[in-house]
């Protein structure tokens, strides 16, 4: 019987509409109460001037193990998550071998258990080998503990396969996560197609490639009644369509990354490969639409789209470099810098996008401080000023566009199942 009292913090739990200064009491890995507590506890944590919220959830992470351990392992990724204030991650199935069978999913759960750090929820592949052709063993993957399905960075290009996947997953009430892009429109592209791509002579990827795919997925959500989750949304056109789909009552959800609402395509003028991400960094009008989508609830969740790569893979010619940034350790501070500081969102809104927003989409019993819930808690110091230093990352991927950024606010203490798992 271990009890913990987190004293005097600003407790924000959007799942219950709570935003109050209170004590949070945990016992035996579960939440006991939010309020004023005088009972003695085994562990006392002073949270004065801190924000106390459910442990953050990053619903879009690549952990690379098995197969690409030079980029990341489940243990290093889970450690990076904790350092970023994240207590649960959902990891993509594009490992080697791909998580398209029961054994592969069970391996991830086993490795995560061995690491004993953040909670890891595996996603299963929609199709065998993520090749977009034949459905994976979805039912057995569900039994193994997979929470949702995705072909990771590979768009589900075939509309018929997408339709059948939505119908089939409907039997298990699991969503399909799709990376929306029309492959033939983005093929060979390295950045957003606009003036800067023209200037630099770099092959562009038009926003229309995302808009068209989002439109198709919405149409298929309608025809199948299935749950479509649109990964890493970045375009004005997508956000408009998702807004209308939600208004029409379709089961469509969406996520966004901090780099897509923070950085613009002109960063590529440096030819720095850390700005090569997919979807690409876009222009001011798209960024404004992203912020609006976050404000009005069109976008449900903020995720890092953590794509760690060993240094030798990112220090090459731009067309040879893989897409993506290491994001677990910058998810919270960049969200604060881009959303809280300019006043686009308030704290409960931001915390919601990082806790119960993703929890609801993933269908996992996390992201809440309701009585009896798992005692995963993140304590954020909203005032501390610090500098992001990629060399200090727990992740093996030091590929970040935010290296050297001076930011304010970070996770100070992180508890998983009631136990302090990380502390600055």
């Amino acid at each position: 019987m271990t009890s913990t009292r987190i004293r005097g913090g600003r407790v924000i739990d959007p799942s219950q509409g709570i935003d109050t200064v209170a004590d949070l009491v945990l016992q035996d890995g579960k939440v006991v109460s939010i309020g004023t507590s005088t009972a003695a506890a085994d562990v006392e944590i002073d949270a004065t001037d801190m924000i106390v919220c459910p442990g953050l959830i990053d619903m879009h992470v690549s952990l690379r193990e098995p197969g690409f351990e030079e980029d990341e392992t489940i243990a290093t990724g889970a450690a990076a998550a904790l350092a970023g204030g994240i207590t649960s991650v959902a990891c993509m199935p594009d490992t080697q071998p791909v998580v398209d069978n029961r054994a592969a999913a069970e391996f991830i759960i086993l490795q995560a258990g061995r690491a004993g750090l953040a909670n890891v929820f595996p996603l299963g592949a929609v199709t065998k080998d993520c090749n977009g052709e034949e459905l994976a063993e979805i039912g057995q993957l569900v039994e193994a503990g997979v929470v949702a399905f995705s072909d990771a960075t590979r768009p589900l290009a075939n509309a018929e396969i997408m339709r059948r996947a939505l119908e089939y997953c409907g039997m298990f009430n699991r969503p399909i996560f799709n990376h929306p892009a029309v492959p033939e429109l983005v093929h060979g592209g390295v950045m957003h197609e606009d003036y800067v791509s023209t200037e630099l002579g770099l092959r562009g990827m038009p926003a229309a490639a995302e808009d068209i795919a989002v439109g198709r997925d919405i149409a298929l959500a309608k025809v199948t009644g299935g749950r479509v989750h649109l990964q890493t949304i970045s375009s004005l056109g997508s956000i408009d369509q998702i807004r209308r789909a939600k208004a029409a009552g379709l089961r469509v959800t969406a996520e966004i990354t901090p780099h897509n609402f923070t950085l613009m395509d002109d960063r590529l003028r440096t030819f720095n490969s850390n700005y090569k991400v997919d979807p690409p960094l876009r222009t001011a009008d798209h960024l404004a639409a992203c912020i609006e989508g976050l404000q009005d609830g069109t976008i449900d969740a903020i995720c890092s789209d953590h794509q760690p790569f060993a240094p030798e893979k990112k220090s090459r010619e731009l067309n040879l470099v893989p897409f993506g940034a290491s994001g677990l350790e910058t998810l919270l501070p960049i969200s604060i810098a881009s959303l809280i500081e300019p006043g686009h969102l308030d704290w409960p809104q931001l915390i919601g996008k990082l806790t119960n927003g993703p929890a609801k989409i993933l269908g996992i019993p996390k992201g809440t401080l309701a009585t009896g819930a798992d005692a995963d808690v993140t304590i954020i110091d909203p005032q501390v000023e610090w500098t992001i230093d990629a060399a200090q990352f727990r992740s093996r991927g030091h590929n970040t566009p935010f290296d050297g950024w001076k930011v304010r606010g970070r996770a100070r203490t992180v508890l998983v199942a009631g136990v302090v798992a990380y502390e600055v």
Partner: protein
Amino acid sequence: MNFVTDTDNSIKKRWTKRHLLGLEYLSADEITMILDQAAEFKRLAAQGETKLGLLRGTVVANLFFEPSTRTRTSFGLAAKRLSADIVEFSAAGSSLVKGETFIDTARNIEAMGVDQVVVRHSTPGAPHLLAQNLNTSVLNAGDGTHEHPTQALLDIFTIREHRGTLQGLTVALVGDISHSRVARSNIWGLTKLGARVIVCGPATLIPQHVEKLGVEVATDLDKILPELDCINLLRIQFERQRSGLFPSIAEYAHLFGMNGERLKTAKDDVMILAPGPINRGVEITPDVADGGHSVILDQVTNGLLIRMACLYLLNPKNSP
């Protein structure tokens, strides 16, 4: 013997850039310095002074990660005219084939005591990557579809030589603008020196928002032809034709090819330029390529002088 004249010295003294990565990053004044330096070398050559000792004791590495004949030969000869030693490198048959990265390859060559690196690469930004990773000066000899500064400089030099100035001239770049590094460098250089630039070609080969670079866009060559002082006919890359960017070579030649008939509607003193290699019968017919308006071979000659000027101005050592 020292052939440096007072004029050379004054230009070299004013020059401050370490790398030549593209014309986007040069001012009109810096572009003019290169042109003036090339003109000075041309004057010396006319006096029979074709071998200068300006870069004696320095080493220039020609790093060509993409095939090229004329640019490579031109840089090689330019270095020799200045008495530099030259190291030739080609990607084919190199350690790149064994999996070495482009940066490591360049670093290894630099470690052998190279003072200047001339780089040609199929990826935009590759010279920028080298500039960040090497200590030597980096000269962009063409990076993918981004820039080809010395080609644009020699085009501009040739125009200036014939017309005295770029100010007020109307220059058309005709052909595949989307995939042309020559077009981008020309646009930067020509507009900075006061020319009016029109890009002309099939709509599928004109990139989005190109007008923000300060150019006008046309898709009807016959319509703009009478206004033009100079026409730069970019090479059509046959490999592009397969990806459906225009219907056929024949249709391209019909709409955008420069032939004797079409030339009749142009100004009497119109200049025809082409960065080469040219596809005879496609973007240009032989009667035009070899006719009185063509300055194509002047461009090749001037290319050598432009590259001498760039190597000289950018060389970190100021040898006697």
